[in-house]
């Protein structure tokens, strides 16, 4: 080989060798299975430079395993000026969304009071995500109108997705920058501390668990103190401790912000929400207070405990025209009534006339879950009934 060829080919060989060595070093350091490593290594050497290029563009599995870092509980959030009493910052009238002949949302009249935590509950496929998508401006309604603040509306999807090669700190900084703010390093740290991710601030998001992603999603949603927060299933991937932390955070956010969050876990809604909307098959079956949901759907029943329960007492109750059923368990009775009004006026008299030695008597309210199940399995209530 002449000197001209050496002079020409030397840089090419150096570049090719450097490229192959670099790609091989990445293949070796990756956490993919050994067989995949061998395949990529062979491809990198056999097909210069395309094997290496393909590896750099398409290979996966080098994000590393999730480090075992303890997540601290969220720090208290500094309360903002309360928003109560400013009306309904989130409202809609006759909101409808159709996909072909299917109505995903059917005439939604939403009223979310300022500063409240509004729980949007419903089974999977009820239309919760579609409704939040429309409120967030990500989807267009087929008809109807809605009102939201022009600025300061933050949204968190079910499972937030961020660029995996960014750190948690960078994601928060990016969120702030996109909304036209610059956060100091201290404020970024505070934001992460509020969701218990301070220890993970410098970790790459690609190694986060789903629960950590949801915490980070809440952190970026709260950047800039938005007036309205739309959270789609914010606790769906969290363990009980994580769920408690996030719900506590949502609880602290309300007042300063108006929070609307969807969930199919009623206990979560019961825990932090002032108001609830029950969505089923695209229709808002109920909207109002949690107490209102339970009481409006009471099929009234009473628990009665007697010192000594005579059969004559049971027979007297069964004979009363406002009693639907009587269930006996030892000296205790569960009396289901067909009319709450008549029962309130007549039940005590029936017991007295039967000579019952009543030790304890109480009306039986029902949990949100029972009310929800009954609501979604029977004909719809008047949507305005709970207001």
């Amino acid at each position, binding site marked *: 080989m002449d000197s001209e060829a050496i002079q*020409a*080919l030397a840089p090419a060989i150096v570049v090719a060798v450097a490229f192959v060595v*670099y790609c091989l070093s990445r293949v070796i350091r990756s956490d993919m299975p050994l067989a995949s490593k061998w395949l990529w290594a062979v491809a990198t050497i056999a097909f210069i430079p395309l094997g290496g290029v393909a590896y750099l*563009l398409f290979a996966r599995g080098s994000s590393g395993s999730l480090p075992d870092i303890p997540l601290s509980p969220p720090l208290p959030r500094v309360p903002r000026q309360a928003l109560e009493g400013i009306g309904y910052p989130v409202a809609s009238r006759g909101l409808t969304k159709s996909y072909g002949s299917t109505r995903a949302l059917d005439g939604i009249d939403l009223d979310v009071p300022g500063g409240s935590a509004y729980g949007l509950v419903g089974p999977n496929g009820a239309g919760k995500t579609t409704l939040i998508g429309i409120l967030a401006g*990500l989807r267009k309604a087929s008809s109807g109108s809605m009102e939201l603040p022009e600025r300061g509306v933050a949204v968190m999807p079910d499972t937030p997705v961020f660029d995996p090669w*960014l750190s948690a700190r960078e994601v928060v900084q990016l969120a702030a920058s996109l909304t036209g703010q610059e956060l100091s390093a201290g404020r970024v740290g505070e934001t992460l501390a509020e969701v218990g991710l301070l220890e993970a601030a410098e970790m790459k998001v690609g190694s986060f668990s789903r629960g950590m992603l949801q915490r980070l999603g809440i952190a970026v949603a709260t950047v800039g103190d938005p007036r309205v927060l739309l959270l789609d299933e914010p606790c769906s991937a969290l363990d009980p401790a994580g769920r408690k932390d996030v719900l506590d955070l949502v609880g602290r956010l309300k007042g300063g912000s108006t929070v609307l969050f969807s969930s199919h876990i009623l206990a979560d809604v019961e825990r932090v929400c002032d108001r609830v909307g029950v969505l089923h098959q695209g229709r808002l079956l109920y909207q109002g207070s949690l107490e209102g949901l339970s009481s409006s759907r009471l099929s009234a029943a009473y628990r009665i405990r007697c010192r000594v329960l005579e059969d004559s007492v049971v027979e007297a109750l069964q004979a009363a025209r406002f009693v639907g059923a009587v269930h006996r368990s030892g000296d205790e009775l569960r009396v289901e009534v067909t009319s709450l009004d008549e029962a309130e006026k007549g039940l005590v008299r029936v017991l007295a006339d039967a000579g019952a030695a009543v030790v304890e008597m109480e009306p039986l309210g029902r949990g949100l879950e029972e009310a929800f199940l009954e609501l979604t399995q029977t004909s719809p209530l008047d949507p305005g009934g709970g207001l």
Partner: protein
Amino acid sequence: MTLWRLEWLRLLRTRRWIALAGVFVFFGFIGPATVRYAQQIFESLGSSDEVSVMFPDPIPADGVASYVANAMQVGLVVLAVVAAGALCFDGDAAYSVFFRTRVSSLSRLVVARFGVSAIAGVLAFAAGSMAAWYESAVLLGSVPAREMLLGTFLCSLYLVFAVAVVAFASSIVRSKLNTVMLSLAIVILMPILGLIGRLAQWLPSRLVSAPEMLLSGEAVGDYLRPAAVTVVFSAMLVRLAIAMSSRREI
């Protein structure tokens, strides 16, 4: 952390820049060498006593043409993949929500992603051109600087157009694979359109031949029309991509 910085970080941290630069620089070195040693390579593959193939003496333009041919095939595919990785932000709805609910205008998002991908493509192509220039000068003879730089510039315009096509495609389809396929289909369609009458003189694909033809003595004025069309088409495609992405539901 601006959107532009985010895109630079995407190139750097995902190592896509190495794939992009690697493929262009590699072909920049290999192209002229392949032309120079074509006869020897052919003979080493097994010659026949009955058939004798004689290659004409290569000139510098052949070395540059060999680089551009490879760069505009393999390099273009790699650039389309890299650009689609940045521009297909609607491929994952949850990812898209983060940006769409925060940026004041979607144009900020699209322009930053288009801009950084285009700049990366141009820089990678320019690095490959430098390698091809060096290699051609050493193996095939001196390469005029003015024509070489003009050719590289005109070819770079075509790469910017290709990235604009990817941006446009990403506003029609959502997945990265579909975006790359659609983009390449549009880019491949260009030379076919060029078969119609004198249309080829106006199409962006004409710019691909600029480095070789300028070195062979063609006037730069012959490339002003396709260059202008390329700039206008690129701007229109990006504008369309912004408009169509803005109307898209997530």
